[in-house]
């Protein structure tokens, strides 16, 4: 039987070296699949871990800022370092007007704080009294949702209730009060006068952050201003932005806008990073641990690749000798081996990205239950579900690292070819 003549035309795009490299990769399919699996697994783990970490940081930041600080705060200069009653924002309405005109601002509210003695029928404790705007506070913080017993503070303008107080669960326990019980507040007003009031507990909140639940109570801002002789002044304007990524942009815009108003000079804009330095430190520690873990994982994969290539070179030394004998330069052989390592890595990394992103996306939709999380996580308000956050960085940073390391590692065995003499290689057993 005579087969028909085959056209001499061949694919112009794939070089014979590439073709050889691809076929060489599949000469030992089991070993190749094992190596590809190691690369793929490393990429999957890196994508998921990185997305999980970034997602948990966002959850930590959002939970923490939504309970208390907000993404941004405007304060009088020096108030953050020394919480003096007299360091106030004198005309908050003017600032509110400025903030209303800035894009990407989700919500904002005002607060005032001071330390006072709080007494029930049975006990007296020192606590931080926080004046809040009940209407706007609900849009900025999770305080309303955290109210477990009774009611959140009412809108005093519509429904009255100016003498209502919302207190933390641990403080309520310490003072032995419940909803409907009376509390006496005794402190010092802004003008130095004695500030005193009798308030009724309308609700009890529980954030999971012990310090917050033990030391704070909230009253309507108007009541606060009245008790503490504040006039219209407040201590903080809390701002939440639409996305964490918008924080620095909005901050810059507020700083610029403040320059155009008379009291702007006396004010500072602080972001969550400055307001909760402990949170940033916790994230840094976690990230460092993550980097150590990634490094170990990549080292394991690198050794797997190194082993594969050393074995491949050992097994094919004789073949390399023949190729050199017929005129292949060592440089061309190195190129061939680098093609092989790249092909294997690309397949592994490609599969790793696809599977890793797929798994991460599933968890991004359904979340990971962290209800049994540790006390440390609770300190940052992470008591519910964590949603990994897949992004271009989390999807590609790990795989690119794996690719760079594996190709780098494959260089070593490939370079050994350079020192090979054809006659020695051909007699290699």
């Amino acid at each position: 039987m005579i087969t028909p003549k085959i056209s001499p035309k061949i694919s112009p795009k794939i070089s014979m070296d590439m073709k050889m490299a691809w076929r060489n990769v599949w000469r030992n399919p089991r070993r190749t699949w094992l190596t590809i699996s190691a690369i793929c697994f490393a990429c999957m783990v890196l994508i998921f871990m990185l997305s999980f970490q970034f997602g948990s940081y966002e959850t930590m930041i959002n939970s923490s800022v939504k309970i208390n600080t907000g993404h941004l705060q405007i304060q009088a200069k020096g108030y953050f370092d020394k919480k003096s009653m007299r360091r106030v924002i004198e005309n908050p309405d003017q600032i509110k007007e400025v903030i209303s005109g800035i894009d990407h601002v989700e919500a904002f509210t005002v607060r005032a704080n001071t330390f006072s003695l709080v007494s029930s029928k049975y006990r007296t404790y020192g606590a931080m009294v926080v004046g809040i705007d009940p209407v706007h506070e609900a849009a900025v913080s999770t305080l309303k949702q955290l109210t477990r017993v009774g009611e959140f503070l009412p809108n005093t303008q519509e429904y009255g209730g100016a003498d209502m107080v919302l207190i933390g669960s641990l403080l309520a326990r310490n003072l032995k009060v419940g909803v409907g019980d009376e509390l006496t507040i005794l402190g010092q007003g802004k003008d130095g006068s004695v500030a005193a009031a009798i308030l009724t507990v309308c609700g009890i909140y529980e954030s999971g952050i012990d310090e917050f639940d033990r030391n704070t109570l909230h009253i309507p801002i108007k009541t606060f201003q009245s008790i503490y002789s504040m006039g219209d002044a407040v201590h903080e304007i809390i701002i939440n932005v639409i996305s964490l990524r918008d924080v620095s942009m909005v901050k810059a815009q507020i700083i610029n806008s403040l320059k155009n108003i008379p009291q702007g000079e006396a004010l500072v804009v602080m972001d969550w990073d400055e307001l909760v330095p402990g949170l940033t430190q916790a994230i840094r520690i976690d990230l460092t641990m993550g980097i150590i873990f990634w490094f170990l994982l990549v080292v394991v994969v690198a050794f797997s690749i190194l082993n594969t290539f050393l074995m491949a070179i050992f097994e094919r030394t004789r073949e390399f000798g023949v190729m050199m004998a017929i005129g292949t330069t060592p440089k061309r052989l190195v190129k061939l081996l680098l093609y092989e390592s790249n092909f294997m890595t690309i397949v592994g990394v490609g599969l790793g990205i696809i599977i890793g992103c797929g798994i991460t996306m599933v968890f991004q939709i359904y979340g990971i239950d962290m209800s049994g999380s540790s006390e440390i996580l609770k300190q940052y308000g992470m008591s519910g579900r964590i949603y990994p956050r897949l992004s271009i960085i989390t999807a590609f940073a790990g795989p690119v690292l794996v690719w760079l390391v594996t190709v780098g590692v494959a260089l070593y065995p490939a370079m050994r070819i350079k020192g090979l003499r054809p006659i020695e290689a051909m007699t290699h057993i």
Partner: protein
Amino acid sequence: MPIVEVNGVDKVYQQGDIEIHALKDIHLSIAPGSFAAIAGPSGSGKTTLLNMIGGLDLPDHGDVIVDGCHFSEMNQSQLAELRLNRIGFVFQSYNLIPVLSAVENVEYVMLLQGVEKVERRERAMAMLDEVGLSEKYHNRPSELSGGQQQRVAVARAIVSNPAIVLADEPTANLDSKTGEGLLKIMAAMNEKRNVTFIFSTHDKMVMDYAHRLVLLRDGMIADDEFK
């Protein structure tokens, strides 16, 4: 002018504390178009001499000159260049590249020479036709018999238009009928293309086909017979 000159070549291998004199003061001159065999018992130095002529190994003393090129004056990359363009190799165990098909194996040397793709494929196919493998272009070495693989190896050695083809015991792994068929192909090419063939062998049939027989014994030329 001879195509191959071997002038006073010595080669000593060290095996532990023992020195093995593989070649001792070899002088040999081979004319273009020869069909010569270097014969001798195992360990006589046949393969060592062939490796010297192929520039795969260098002598301790003396010089090898192929097609006017003095090996003693050349570095490794120049020797590689010479092997690519002027010398073809046929090995005892075929040594085809296992991941390439027959036609790709033949093409590979031309790829190294920088021959353009379409011409490469045309010449490779023509060469396989010449060695009787027109039906096996796309078979991998593992799908070919020993004789067919050796014919591909011959096609690969010839296709680059070398000045000499060095064949190291080319029939050793073949049965006598297949071996003779291969020798006929090589003899025809020698005649048609005037390519110099130099064999190392202890196969009587190869010695019979050869026009010149150089007999080696203990690393020295014991006899040199022109037929």
